[in-house]
């Protein structure tokens, strides 16, 4: 009698471990694949393969030079400057907390890089990888 009950317990234990394993895989997948930020809207991308979005504020001293450097460095890309104070909803959607915040989006609007601050931008330009 006990061997049969032991078999039942072993089968149930394997079932629990299998569910646990599947759950961990599912949770890992959800956490790594869920988009952390929304897509850059098409109205901003304008169909470009690469779009640099620079969130600025009226008092941001380094934002102008960053825009100029981007246009010179990446002439094939679409460079868009957005005043975060004029577009608070967009800034909120992309979690912009300070200026400059620079986003690089691919042709589908997925954010590929997020650079917060002039120093982060400099580091990225020196070593894009």
């Amino acid at each position, binding site marked *: 009698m006990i061997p049969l009950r032991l078999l039942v317990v072993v089968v*149930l234990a394997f079932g629990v471990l299998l569910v646990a394993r599947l759950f*961990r895989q599912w949770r890992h997948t959800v956490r790594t694949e869920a988009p952390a930020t929304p897509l850059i809207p098409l109205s901003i991308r304008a169909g470009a393969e690469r779009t640099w979005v620079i969130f600025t504020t009226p008092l941001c001293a380094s934002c102008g030079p960053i825009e100029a450097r981007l246009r010179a460095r990446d002439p094939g890309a679409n460079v868009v400057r957005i005043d975060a104070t004029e577009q608070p909803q967009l800034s909120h959607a992309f979690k912009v907390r300070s200026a400059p915040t620079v986003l690089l989006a691919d042709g589908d609007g997925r954010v590929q890089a997020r650079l917060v601050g002039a120093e982060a931008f400099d580091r990225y330009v020196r070593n894009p990888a």
Partner: protein
Amino acid sequence: MVVTPKPIDPRGPRFNQAVLTVGLVGGFLFDWKPVVPVFAVVLLLGAAFGPRYGPFLRLYAEVVKPRLAPPKELEDPRPPRFAAAVGVAFLGAATIAFAAGASTLGWALALVVAVLAGLSAVTGICVGCEMWLFAARRRGIPLAG
């Protein structure tokens, strides 16, 4: 104003579930049926009166918890209490089945509780808690923790 209860250390209910699983599985292996009503009462005390009255919840709070690091997160106490209430219902039904001579049905009901408690203890997937959370979201009940 909606008052939410004080959040609890989630490791307490998981400890309780681990003891419950071991107890029920041991009882099943050795066909010791009294373990089922005993654990029904244990769960009932914690579900009806709170963690202070659940023997194993109290054991965790007074003996195990002081030896552990503080919890990284807290949880609302209502979902695990609801899950315990569901467990009480199943173990109560199992006890009635034993009393009526339906041992297979009794152990099947008890093993449902053992499996779900084991799943929660090992992985944190608490099916009864999820049922409560689903209802809470639909009814707009705010959560603590």
